[in-house]
């Protein structure tokens, strides 16, 4: 028997994140590293715990190995609990057949038995793709105060960008009157953040109906929400003020990393009352050497810095050799930057070694694009990697062939 929970969170973490190219080749987008010592999924998980929600189902599908390993028993987020805690929910084979998750709504539908164990009054639907700090308890309170069936968190976006989002048109009471997916001529600037709170019974009814509908693509935004709206359910927008970023592209991932850097950064993680938790690596404190020069950068445990680092984010265990120069870059864990190498406006994924005297990327000021280097690669000394390149094993093989 399980203890009743007022609210259960369901975290959609199955996304491939195909626009992150080589960075999500071997891992799901929520497991992509971020901000030196985090992964994207640390943000919604930490938000849950900090909001007092201790029952979280994580729905995985694409490349789940790293994600499963990372979440483990939920210990880093205090989610290793007897009566609740975090549970990874992969697609499974049922008596009636085996199915991948066909859409966001179908993923929740297939796991309603998990939700039912806790007999919750509310279900919170989250996505594992966004960087933000949000108190879901406040949103839940708004949901209850309004007596809503469904509450959708919305963010004010500039009018010119509104056509990239799902836009909620509301009345003065914030009740949603219309929902438009990527409208050409947006009537409002309230963009859906993909965060929903439903009354459990309402959600169950609509997911069952949606499942029975052969024409539905089993998606919250495309099917379930419009249907609820059409039926005249009480749906409210919950305006969120604060930093929120979809890190779905190389550019936005780079930007979000840089938003952490600064004396008064755009997105400040140093709030001790709203800590972001992550799995610990048991590495030694970092060491800055005799010839190091670090400015406007974030450095974390296990790093050894002997070179120059400017406007960059370095993850754990990064080695910057003497004479190396890193600028405007995001370096993920255990990367080695060889002696005398220059890395400019680049993202380098974990465990890659950049040989001595290499040149990676070009100065950001020159209007060039970000260079991306995949994980577990060994770049030979004195390699030149131009801006905008996506370097993976195939790229390197090709490069070697053209040289021979």
């Amino acid at each position: 028997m399980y203890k009743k929970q007022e609210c259960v969170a369901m975290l959609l973490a199955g996304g491939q994140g195909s626009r992150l190219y080589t960075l999500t080749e071997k891992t799901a987008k929520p497991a992509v590293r971020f901000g030196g010592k985090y992964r994207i999924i640390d943000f919604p998980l930490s938000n849950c715990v900090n909001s007092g929600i201790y029952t979280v189902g994580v729905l995985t599908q694409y490349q789940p190995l790293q994600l499963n390993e990372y979440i483990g028993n939920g210990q880093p987020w205090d989610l290793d609990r007897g009566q609740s805690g975090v549970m990874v929910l992969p697609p499974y084979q049922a008596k009636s057949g085996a199915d991948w998750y066909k859409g966001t709504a179908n993923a929740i539908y297939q796991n309603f038995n998990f939700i039912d164990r806790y007999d919750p009054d509310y279900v919170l639907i989250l996505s594992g793709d966004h960087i933000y700090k949000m108190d879901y308890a406040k949103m839940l309170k708004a949901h209850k105060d309004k007596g809503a069936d469904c509450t959708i968190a919305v963010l004010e976006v500039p009018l010119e960008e509104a056509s990239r989002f799902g836009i909620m048109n509301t009345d003065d009471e914030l009740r949603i009157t219309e929902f438009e997916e990527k409208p050409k001529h947006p009537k409002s600037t309230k963009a859906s953040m993909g965060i929903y709170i439903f009354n459990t019974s309402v959600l169950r009814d609509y997911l069952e109906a949606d499942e029975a509908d052969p024409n539905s693509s089993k998606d919250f935004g495309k099917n379930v929400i419009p249907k609820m709206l059409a039926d005249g359910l009480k749906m409210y927008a919950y305006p969120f003020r604060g930093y929120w970023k979809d890190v779905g592209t190389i550019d936005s991932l780079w930007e979000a990393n840089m938003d952490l850097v600064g004396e008064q950064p755009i997105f400040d993680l140093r709030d001790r009352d709203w800590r972001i938790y992550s799995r610990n690596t048991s590495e030694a404190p970092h060491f800055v050497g005799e010839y190091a020069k670090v400015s406007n950068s974030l450095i974390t445990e296990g790093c050894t810095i002997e070179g120059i680092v400017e406007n960059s984010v370095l993850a754990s265990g990064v080695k910057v050799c003497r004479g190396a120069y890193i600028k405007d870059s995001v370096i993920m864990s255990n990367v080695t930057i060889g002696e005398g190498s220059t890395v400019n406006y680049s993202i380098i994924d974990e465990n890659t070694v950049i040989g001595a005297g290499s040149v990676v990327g070009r100065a950001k000021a020159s209007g060039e694009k970000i260079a991306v280097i995949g994980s577990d690669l060994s770049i030979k000394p004195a390699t030149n990697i131009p801006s905008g390149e996506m370097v993976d094993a195939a790229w390197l093989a090709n490069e070697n062939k053209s040289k021979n």
Partner: protein
Amino acid sequence: MSAYGIIFSNIHDSHIPELTRLRTIASVPFACRYRFIDFTLSNMVNSNIYNISVITNYNYQSLMDHIGSGKDWDLARRSGGIKLLPPNITAFANPYIQNASNSRLDSLKSVSASLSRIKDDYVVLSDCDVICNVDFTDMIRYHQETGADMTIAVKNVEMTSEQAKSNVIFRSDESGRITEVIPYPADFSGEADISLNMIVMSTSYLNHLVLEAQTRGYTSLTRDIIARTSGYKNNRIYRCDGYFAAITSFADYYKHSMELIEKPWVRESLFNVKSRPVYTKVRNSTPTYYAAGSAAKNSMIADGCFIEGTVENSIIFRGVKIGRNATVRNSIIMQDTIVGDGAFLNCVIADKNAVIRDQRMLSGAETQPFYVSKGKMI
């Protein structure tokens, strides 16, 4: 083969009174984010010792706070795990408490009931003031193979007479059997095997010794047990190589902290030993931010810091803030301490949560660092 760990958390508190006024020697902060006991606990866990008792006598709030459930060392376990053994205060007067001794043997006597319930074959006894990364598995195997009654880890060192005064010297025959014990010699210099205060013996022998000590009123492990029995028991030394830092004074604490910066091999042999990480309480600090205009070199720096000034040859703990145009040289700045704008620090050890106000100038010397106590504002 299974072993049980027993850690003495108050032994030698008096060696560094500055840092142990509000804590046990086990919870003295070291190397940016560790406490002394982290090294002992990690050594045990990395040697598959998952049943550990930490004997505490007093002043152990900080230790309890640090260890918590033991989860960060994988020691939060249903069966076994870590256990803190505070003094056994009963409704009736307890002779061991009234004497308020914190010697190892008295501590063991006061927890004899707990010791008698140990089911593991061997016990590893360890203090906390020797910083090292060792594998106890090899030492226990050596103990088994030689059929010793007691095996004591030693290191062969060259000492001045000043250094020798705070050490226990063992003389042994060619086979490694202890022939003579010279505790804290008043006048000795030269090469000798000194005790690292890590001892292996069988659980039954430990219980036998504690019982004997209770009946006969013995109080010192070194004098009444090791030295007394060495004539007729098979007490052996086990020589260790590698890095060992015995912290026997405040100046020693400073010296060994600075070694972390000056000697790359010291960092390597403490923190980069394959398969033997050092664990500590996880604090979920953010990465450290280096502002434009900051200048840090030759320093070991933990996470969660905010560095705007200059840092040279220093050890900076978690959550420290170094203000604009401040200079911190040859110093150790502990957790959450704030160094104000334009302050100048040289050879300073600032304890936790201290505040050095803007423009202050503080300087000690290598042999006598200036100490700023916990929570102090200067």
